[in-house]
């Protein structure tokens, strides 16, 4: 993994996640804005995993390969699955849950950095 890229991913996840939670607290649900935010976070997760794949192809290895692969796959799936589940509830809690699923990517990225070594 590239540390700087990971920090960018963490930053984007935190900003979008907390922003969405803020909208939820304000009981607002601007779906287009939410979609842009969530797609940005997912794109960041995807870039990060692709870069890690390139690094592995070039011969680098994570310290804990099995755990890293688990986290990498989870980092791609958690946001789409979480956001679909969350936004299918029309209350502000659903909106907030979508924000939480973006925050989870920040946690996963921290863990990915740790097990990469």
């Amino acid at each position, binding site marked *: 993994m590239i540390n700087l890229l990971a920090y960018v991913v963490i930053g984007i996840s935190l900003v979008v996640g907390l922003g969405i939670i803020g909208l939820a607290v304000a009981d607002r649900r601007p779906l287009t804005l939410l979609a842009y935010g969530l797609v940005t976070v997912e794109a960041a997760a995807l870039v990060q995993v692709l870069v890690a794949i390139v690094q592995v192809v070039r011969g680098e290895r994570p310290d804990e390969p099995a755990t890293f692969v*688990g986290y990498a796959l*989870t980092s791609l799936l958690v946001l789409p699955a*979480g956001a*679909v*589940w*969350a936004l299918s*509830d029309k209350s502000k*809690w659903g909106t907030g849950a979508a924000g*939480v699923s973006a925050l989870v990517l920040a946690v996963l990225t921290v863990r990915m950095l740790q097990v990469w070594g």
Partner: protein
Amino acid sequence: MGGSTSQGRRSGPRPTSSGPGRLLVLVYGIFALSATARAAVQIATKFHEAPLAYVLSALAALVYICATVGLARSGPGARRLATVAVTVELIGVLVVGTISVARPDDFPDATVWSGYGEGYGFVPLVLPVLGLLWLRHTRERA
């Protein structure tokens, strides 16, 4: 998609998966996923190092899966499943948390519930309390 709400607002138990429940189920789902993945990696790669801790990891994963499914679905069966799973979860985090603090040598490697879930920001300790409160809250007649 998933819009199969039952006929309107009859008095009776409310679904556990809407409103705040939507967020609760999401968090439970994340724990189900991460506990399952963690237990699978531990058991597959280093089971002999700490068999007790890893069996507990797997048990915790099963409990989270049952709680997630129970809370996400509607009906008396799902509610019963969720109640049992969340209760076991609360007992589990208290017992494992206490033993892991009192006798750390028995837990050479961490489980989700070690130290009352301190490795996960104590969310594993708070979650079952919220789960039980939510189950009770939705049981009351609307």
